[in-house]
């Protein structure tokens, strides 16, 4: 029963990731050759300004594009399977907004701790998880796929209103810190932070591979899966945990990025034509990374004329695609 088509597409898309990274590398304001790129790592010279540029700017940006793209797509897929709703995603369900709110609260509280990496990841993660719990409770009461979406959007508006209130009453220093964060960018991370971010990301990915069987079963609905012996509440908690980990981490470092988590999982299913999450997890990681790398490449191309925030650009591509899915699904 093995299908050769799916592994073939996956291998192709895996190969497209470094290719997209190369495109990203060559679209920047300062073009960098591939040999410079490698020598910056294997033959680093602290006096070479190109090397420093690559290590401090180019590489972290590519690294974060791959992580954010893959991570958001993966957490979107987890949410869509959990809620059995192709329109779910970390952004529309208010997972990002929850993270934003708690980050705003902690940053503006003025405690030194929350300015650190661990403090930032921690508060984003808690915020994401709380929002997830709220959405899970809501989803339990409403069955309609569209209504859940509306509640998610309302939740998003509500939290952003709270954030605005916080902004208006906070001091200049903390306001600056938060505003910078909330603009959303792939360029806010330093080289030294990458190991920690990479580690948390890898943890999330590995954990989701342990959920392949429950995820596959959830496709036929919670009730049927439960009657086949799936421990629903445990699985729900785990999926929500991993989603918050990934979406929280990415929101903490890149700010809110819309539509990747909603559009890419649908695109992956359409391309792979399967519901087996063994393949879907890999597909989402690869397609998500490619998508965000290419989006960011285009932003770089126009960076001399206008500074486009990444969030705006993913929405420009993602929103029409979601409308397309809506029209296909809910005829």
């Amino acid at each position, binding site marked *: *029963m093995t299908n050769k088509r799916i592994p073939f597409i996956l291998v192709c898309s895996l190969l497209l990731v470094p290719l997209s990274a190369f495109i990203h590398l060559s679209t920047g304001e300062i073009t960098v050759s591939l040999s410079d790129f490698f020598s910056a790592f294997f033959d680093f010279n602290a006096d070479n300004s190109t090397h420093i540029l690559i290590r401090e700017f180019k590489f972290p940006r590519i690294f974060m594009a791959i992580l954010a793209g893959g991570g958001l797509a993966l957490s979107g897929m987890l949410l869509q399977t959990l809620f059995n709703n192709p329109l779910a995603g970390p952004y529309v369900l208010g997972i990002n907004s929850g993270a934003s709110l708690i980050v705003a609260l902690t940053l503006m509280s003025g405690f030194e701790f929350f300015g650190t990496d661990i403090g930032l990841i921690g508060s984003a993660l808690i915020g994401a998880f709380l929002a997830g719990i709220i959405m899970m409770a809501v989803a339990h009461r409403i069955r309609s796929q569209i209504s859940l979406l509306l509640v998610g959007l309302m939740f998003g508006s509500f939290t952003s209103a709270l954030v605005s209130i916080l902004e208006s009453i906070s001091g200049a220093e903390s306001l600056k810190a938060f505003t910078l964060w909330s603009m959303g960018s792939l360029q806010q991370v330093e080289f030294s932070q990458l190991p920690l971010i990479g580690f948390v990301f890898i943890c999330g990915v590995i954990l989701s591979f*342990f959920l*392949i*069987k429950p995820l*596959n*079963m959830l*496709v*036929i609905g919670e*009730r*049927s899966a439960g*009657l*086949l*012996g*799936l*421990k629903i509440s445990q699985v729900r908690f785990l999926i929500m945990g991993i989603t918050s980990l990934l979406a929280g981490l990415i929101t903490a470092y890149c700010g809110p990025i819309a539509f990747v988590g909603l559009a890419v999982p649908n695109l992956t*299913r359409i391309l*792979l*034509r*399967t*519901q*087996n999450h063994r393949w879907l997890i890999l597909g989402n990681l690869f397609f998500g990374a490619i998508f965000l790398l290419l989006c960011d490449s285009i932003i770089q191309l126009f960076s001399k004329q206008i500074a486009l925030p990444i969030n705006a650009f993913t929405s420009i591509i993602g929103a029409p695609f979601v409308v397309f899915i809506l029209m296909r699904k809910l005829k």
Partner: protein
Amino acid sequence: MIRFEQIEIGYSKPLILIPSLTLDAGKVYALVGRNGIGKSTFLNSIIGQIPLLSGNLFLNEQAVQNILKIELPKVIAYVESRFDGVEYLSVFDYLAFGRSPYTNNFGSLSSDDIQVIQEVVKDLNIAHLLEKCTSEISDGERQLCAVARALIQTTPIILLDEPTAFLDYLNRQKLVQLLVLIAEKQHKTIILSSHDIDICIENSLEFLIVSEKKILKTKVSDKQIVIKEMEKD
């Protein structure tokens, strides 16, 4: 085999009382009754979705409270009244879910699992559907696949909630005949709830007639007797 002893079924107030009832292996029972009388509650109580209010329930001579929750899918398989299919979910992958109570944490199928699936596929003659998508086959084919999935679970007991509701006459006949054959051949206890009394009589199923607060087990050949019993208050 299913045995009921002094059982009260319902949510907070008892809806059905069953002093004593034994359902044998090798037979198909037709669960009939008016809408809202408690057929679904009855089925849901057996599969443990609704806790029993009191009494003892034995599944294959094993008291239900002694069966671990994780072991229950190896004893009872349940077929919902309607499976709409899922986009991109192949029939084979759907059938393979029937093995999930037996597979490891990653859900990988052993050669034994594959063999079980292949045997059922052969018995039900659905090999041509395997590669197809569950959302693209007909209602009748889908219902057949749902039954196949339950058989692949290799349980001594199978419950079906109105399996014929969305099928045409020929497919109904085919399905009920198939269930009778399976029950006899594989010595399974099968209960199906239905509003289709004619087909149940034609296939001489034994009836479980639910009326106000009780269940009557009876063999009938006259539709009027069933209707009279259903009307009792």
